[in-house]
């Protein structure tokens, strides 16, 4: 007795004919009704405009998105730049004192200057706009992530590094297969931490003309429209709360 289930062979021809008929009917009705997919795609914008007028977005929506975009860009590039610098200033990977010592000194100095001051200086160079704010955030997150990262690189398990070195691996291979896997969770966690801080500071950078929701804050306060200030406080509160929750969740899934 076999445990095979016997399935009747499908009626191929009938099935194919059926599907073809259905497709034919659909296509024919579309052609008969002069339906044109290109027209739909071209016209989508007009529909979107009407929708936007039906459900108008509040005035803070654009600046809020700008703030988030600034925080994302600033954190991403800052954290990306931080990785090679952290490798270079970690004592156990690249042991060159005349690179390490000045780099660490430089990182220390970067972290002592508030992002606001950087933003004000870049506004003098790049003009008013969010670009200056983003550069300030890049520098801030670079300093923060690089400092935390080289400390955790120095705390990794040396066994894997030695095992690779003893097999004749060069420094790049050691970094890829012994260092990176060990520090990746911390790296992402520090980046998220920098992101949380950046969202908060991006929200006030507008004060010095560096874009984002801070400009609205400043304007509302200058005109003493306190109901607008309250609205902005609630909005940024909800966004920050949501992002904190989200990054806590990501962090927990890493550890």
């Amino acid at each position, binding site marked *: 007795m076999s445990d095979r289930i016997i399935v009747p062979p499908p009626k191929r021809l009938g099935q194919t004919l059926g599907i073809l008929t259905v497709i034919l009917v659909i296509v024919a009705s579309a052609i008969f009704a002069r339906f044109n997919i290109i027209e739909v795609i071209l016209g989508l914008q007009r529909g979107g405009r009407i929708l936007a007028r039906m459900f108008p977005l509040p005035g803070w929506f654009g600046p809020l*998105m*700008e703030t*988030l*975009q*600034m*925080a*994302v*860009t600033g954190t*991403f590039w800052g954290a990306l730049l931080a990785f090679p610098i952290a490798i270079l200033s970690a004592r156990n990977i690249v042991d060159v004192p005349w690179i390490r010592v000045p780099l660490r000194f430089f990182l*220390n*100095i970067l972290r*002592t*200057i*508030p992002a*606001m*001051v950087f933003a*004000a*200086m870049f506004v*003098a*160079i*790049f*003009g008013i*706009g*969010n*670009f200056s704010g*983003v550069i300030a955030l890049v520098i801030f997150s670079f300093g923060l992530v690089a400092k935390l990262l080289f400390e955790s690189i120095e705390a990794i*398990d040396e066994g*894997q590094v030695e*095992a*690779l070195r003893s*097999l*004749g*691996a060069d420094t790049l*291979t050691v970094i890829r*297969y012994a260092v990176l*896997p*060990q520090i*990746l*969770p911390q790296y992402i966690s520090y980046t998220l931490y920098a992101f949380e801080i950046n969202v*908060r500071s991006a*929200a*006030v950078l507008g*004060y*010095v003309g560096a*874009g984002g929701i801070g400009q609205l*804050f400043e304007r509302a*306060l200058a005109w003493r429209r306190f109901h607008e*200030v309250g609205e902005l*406080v609630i909005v*940024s*509160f909800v966004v*920050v*709360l949501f992002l*904190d929750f989200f990054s806590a969740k990501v962090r927990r*899934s*890493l550890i």
Partner: protein
Amino acid sequence: MSKGFEPKIYYRTAFPMDSEGRFLVPPALSRTEFMGRILNYLIMALIVIWGLAGLQFKGIMQTAAATVESFGRAFIQPDFSYLLDTTMDGLPWALLETISIAVAGTFVSALLSLPFALMASENLVGPRVAAWGKTIITAIRTFPELILALLFISVVGPGASAGILALGVHSIGMLGKLFSEAIEAMDMGPKEALESCGGRPMEVLTRAILPQVSPELISFTLYRFEINMRAAATLGLVGAGGIGAPLIFAINGRQWPRAAIIILVLVITVILIDNLSAAIRKRLISGR
């Protein structure tokens, strides 16, 4: 997430190599894992592109070259007369005011944080109350410092007091969280012993809880002091006292030699304070 990179596998197989001496890649991912990872990367890439799309680069200001040049020159020849000006308009006074704002603000917040931290500790008040306590602390943390400073300016007028109050309230958000984590990690033995002997809540607090967690509490407070030192430097922007106001005025007025001396002094002070407080913290934690 990095399931393919488990160190266990490395130890067991001792880095498998192929005949040409190249390292073999870590074990292959299953199809769903692979697709999930690709999806993660795609979402990441989309978020980064979205962020870049919001960037408005309007080119460099025409005066930028001159600005950078005079800025660089300012660091070679900073405005030393401002440093030596010992009146109320001088740098030493502003610096002292900044430090005192940070000290007083941190002290206020350390005191205010304790009740919030107790309320947010699950092992003292149970999970339901603790959840509320944690929410309140998070709410305080997300309220921007500068807005708080503006609120307090309308209460006490522009000046250092507004800065102290703003830092004092805002720091509850971080200190309360760290304090409650320290309390939650403590040994419950002394507390239960005191309670079973009929100790009143205040006695339990001062004789069982605080003695255990105080080194950590002081260490966190010092750490927050380092952060507040930096924050106090920006509060001046809205008129809450300290070194921030002259700094922003100097930058906006393109008085680079003055901005340079303020930044130099600020950097040196902050580094000194950081090192001092790091040394104290290390001592506290090692218990000597």
